[in-house]
């Protein structure tokens, strides 16, 4: 068994173990935490194994494995990773483990909760390791569909509608995506040779420009909907607000990254001319998304909605950076994905903790929480500062790289868009500082909050797990960009 397939097999084994052996909450969370701990250890191991392998192996993908699946369609189960997928896998493992800790006290149907959560995670891991379009698409849909149950059963507020809206929009997008994938497949023999779903093989093919112009927008939108592209982002605020804490964390932290990753790896990499022809259009949309999300966040009264709109803003920035077509911006996009994944997961976890104690998420009803919950309050302030881009944390590194990359374009159009997008930093500072100031500082808004229970060990573990990589990226950004450099090279060769 190769070390990549284990990322899919271990979650499936955990699901089976949960199905047959878990009797109550204690056993369910024990099995999940052990399983996700293994997964986490494997991902750390993968980083080092990757660095070691990279030193001797110059292929685009390492640890590859190729098993024929559907012979007649030339569908293979092909796996392999480059630096981008490795860091995404690590992000997933961290957020997932933290998510299990945060869900320590889930009371309704605990077994089913962890089963759905871990099924979803196997889809995400499978997505990041596969380098075959069909296999990747299968994993993508496996990652999306459990969200319906996760939000619908364990959510809050208008959970049924939010779950339905989210599922239909994401599955509708993946339906559009499937047309794009078929278009790529049937053009993969443009230079002669057999039809194939193999991403690395298609990357060698010059697909006719007319076909690229048709299938690029389909593929791009198919992925970008889950990456919260304006105007297809509407599932995100209501979905995140209704979802239970761990699901919001995983969804905003990891699942939405599938969008950017897919756009980069499939839409842009396989259809470069289509990407160049369409880039201006989508660039305007994503720039608008950045600004719109930021202003949307200012207007919100509910903490989760603030964070959901902030996610729209920050993930549009990822798409924006990807469409800038240069190395610095792409590196920035990947770091921004990681940084946002960790920070938004922390935010959702913290909001969940505050909500679990005070039973309200309305900003106006909260105040002075820092006095009663010092640990949670401190982490909240740190997260907020990191989120708005304070040097020393990952947010600063990510946004700085993105904007430096974006500004490298000498023409007026890109310059103006970049300047507009940069201004979102100010708006971000406004809503983050206002939110943090209002709920953490000042006098206690409600006397009932005096005896709120302090953070428990599992909550602290979850938060610290997320905080460590945030600081690591913040103080050692060079290591990360150095690691990504080589994996971005093939994209540069293909697209520029």
């Amino acid at each position, binding site marked *: 068994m190769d070390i990549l397939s284990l990322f899919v097999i271990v979650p499936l084994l955990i699901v089976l173990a949960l199905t047959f052996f878990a009797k109550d909450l204690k056993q369910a969370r024990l099995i999940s935490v052990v399983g996700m701990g293994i997964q986490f250890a494997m991902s750390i191991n993968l980083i080092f194994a990757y660095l070691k392998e990279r030193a001797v192996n110059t292929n685009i993908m390492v640890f590859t494995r190729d098993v024929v*699946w*559907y*012979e*007649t*369609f030339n*569908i293979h189960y092909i796996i392999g990773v480059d630096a981008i997928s490795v860091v995404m896998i690590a992000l997933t493992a961290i957020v997932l483990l933290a998510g299990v800790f945060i869900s320590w006290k889930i009371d309704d149907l605990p077994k089913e909760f962890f089963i759905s959560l871990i099924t979803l995670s196997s889809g995400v891991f499978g997505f990041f390791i596969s380098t075959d379009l*069909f296999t990747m*698409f*299968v994993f993508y*849909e*496996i990652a999306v*569909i459990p969200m*319906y*149950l996760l939000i*619908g*059963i364990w959510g809050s507020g208008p*959970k*049924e509608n939010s*779950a*339905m809206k989210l*599922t*239909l929009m994401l*599955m*509708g997008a993946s*339906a*559009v995506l*499937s*047309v794009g994938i*078929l*278009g790529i*497949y*049937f053009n993969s023999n443009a230079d002669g040779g057999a039809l194939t779903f193999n991403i690395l093989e298609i990357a060698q093919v010059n697909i006719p420009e007319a076909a690229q112009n*048709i299938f690029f927008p389909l593929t791009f939108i198919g992925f970008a909907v889950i990456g919260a592209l304006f105007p297809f982002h509407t599932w995100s605020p209501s979905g995140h607000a209704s979802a239970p804490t761990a699901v919001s964390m995983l969804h905003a932290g990891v699942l939405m990254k599938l969008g950017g990753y897919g756009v980069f790896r499939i839409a842009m990499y396989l259809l470069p001319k289509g990407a160049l022809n369409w880039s201006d259009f989508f660039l305007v949309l994503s720039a608008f998304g950045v600004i719109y999300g930021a202003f949307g966040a200012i207007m919100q009264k509910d903490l989760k909605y603030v964070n959901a709109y902030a996610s729209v803003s920050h993930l549009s920035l990822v798409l924006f950076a990807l469409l800038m077509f240069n190395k610095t911006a792409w590196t920035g996009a990947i770091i921004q994905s990681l940084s946002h994944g960790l920070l938004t997961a922390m935010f959702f976890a913290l909001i969940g903790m505050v909500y679990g104690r005070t039973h309200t998420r309305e900003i106006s009803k909260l105040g002075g929480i820092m006095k009663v919950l010092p640990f949670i309050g401190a982490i909240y302030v740190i997260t907020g500062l990191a989120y708005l881009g304070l040097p020393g944390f990952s947010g600063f590194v990510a946004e700085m790289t993105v904007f430096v990359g974006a500004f490298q374009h000498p023409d007026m159009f890109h310059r103006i868009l970049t300047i507009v997008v940069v201004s979102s930093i100010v708006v971000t500072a406004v809503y983050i500082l206002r939110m943090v100031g209002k709920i953490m500082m000042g006098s206690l808004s409600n006397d009932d909050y005096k005896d709120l229970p302090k953070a428990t060990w599992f909550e602290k573990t979850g938060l610290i797990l997320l905080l460590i990589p945030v600081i690591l990226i913040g103080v050692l950004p060079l290591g990360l960009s150095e690691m990504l450099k080589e994996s971005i090279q093939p994209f540069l060769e293909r697209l520029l």
Partner: protein
Amino acid sequence: MNLESFLLMRSEIGLLAILLLLIIFEIFSNKKQKAAVIPFALILLAINTALGFLPLASGELFGGMFRTNALLYFFKTTLSLGVLILLLQSADWLKEKVVDENKASEFFMLIISSLLGTYFMISAGDFLMFYIGLELTTLPVAALVAYDTYKRISAEGAVKYILSSALASGAALFGISLLYATTGTIYFESMAEILTSSNLSILGFVFFFSGLAFKISLAPFHFWTADVYEGAPINVASYLSVISKGAAVVILMILLFTVFKPLMETWNKIIYIVIIATMFIGNLFAIRQQNLKRFLAYSSIAQAGFILLGLMSVDQLGTATIVYFVAVYIFSNLGAFGVVQAVSSFSDKENINDYEGLYRTNPKLSLLMMLALFSLAGIPPLAGFFGKFFLYTAAASQGYYILVFIAVVNATISLYYYLLVVRAMFLRQSDQAIPYFRSPFYMRLGLILAAIGILVAGVYSPIYDYIFSISNTFLN
């Protein structure tokens, strides 16, 4: 004709033997032994199904009226497996409700004669044989639809079914006679050589097609479907939606790909429009249904639209994807109908809101229902996803991207109403939830077989690869 070539009809002979044995059993059993017909018939059919996995040569009989090849043989075995699962699911209903009325063996006889009809229909080598097969498929089902004799809605359904079937058969027969008038032959092979595109032949084709479209319940010939399904006993509705529809689709495909190939330019356009209309009508009407039988009726109309996508690719790929999807669809639909049957025979409840809170009382049934519905909606890694994706592939291989796009939009619409059932079972909680019950042995066996089909038929790729490898057998 020697014995060896006679054995080409092995599957048909097997079914005939079962029929005769059932008659003998009926004659010689006394009142107390009547219930034993259930295991007796099931075992016989299981043996016949198992024999279907042995290989069989291709060939023709009766001067080309009957022909068989690997693909047809595979499909017959699939149908037989489907009927076996269906009968397993209905065994307990028979035991409780029908044996006392002394009608249990007739039920088996009617179903098996209808199955025999589908065998002859898909194996036909000329239009006469085809027509006999079609009628033999249809008429026993009309009796079955009215099996709840004293239920008014059941009788109404039966009348609707027999009248619309008669009309459809008449239309098909009229079309056949026009085709005979243009070509002077009723044999598929010689007609394929002679047929050219003329006004008369197109007119003949259109009548013939509308006759078959009734059987597959394609729009705009679908009006009988929901009423008949609602009136019929659940297992008969299930039979109509999987076995008789599946067989009709396959014979339609065979005829379009061989006999009517000279008219391809014409039927391509007709099918294109019919696909779009069928999918939209099936899906949009399904959204509003409360009764699960009507719900599944409209869902099966929509599914028929998806199946026809494979017809856009007149080659090995189109053939393989259609046969594969029908096989997958049989399992998925039997899973869904099986759960409805189980719940209905326990509680007499058939509406979607009766299922509220079902997961908390009957987790296994709800899980199977969810798997079956997700498979119908095309969610990986269930079999339905692969079936649908391959159908899209077939249509896209000929460049029909717009059609595929409309199809995926419809797949999303269909996901909405399948999720409505999932929502009732999983998301809602109810005080009047159907209490926990344990299904009897046969039912559980039938459900487990369907579940295995849903889970395995997609991920286990050799099934599709095998179908693909035998799919060119009738094309040349």
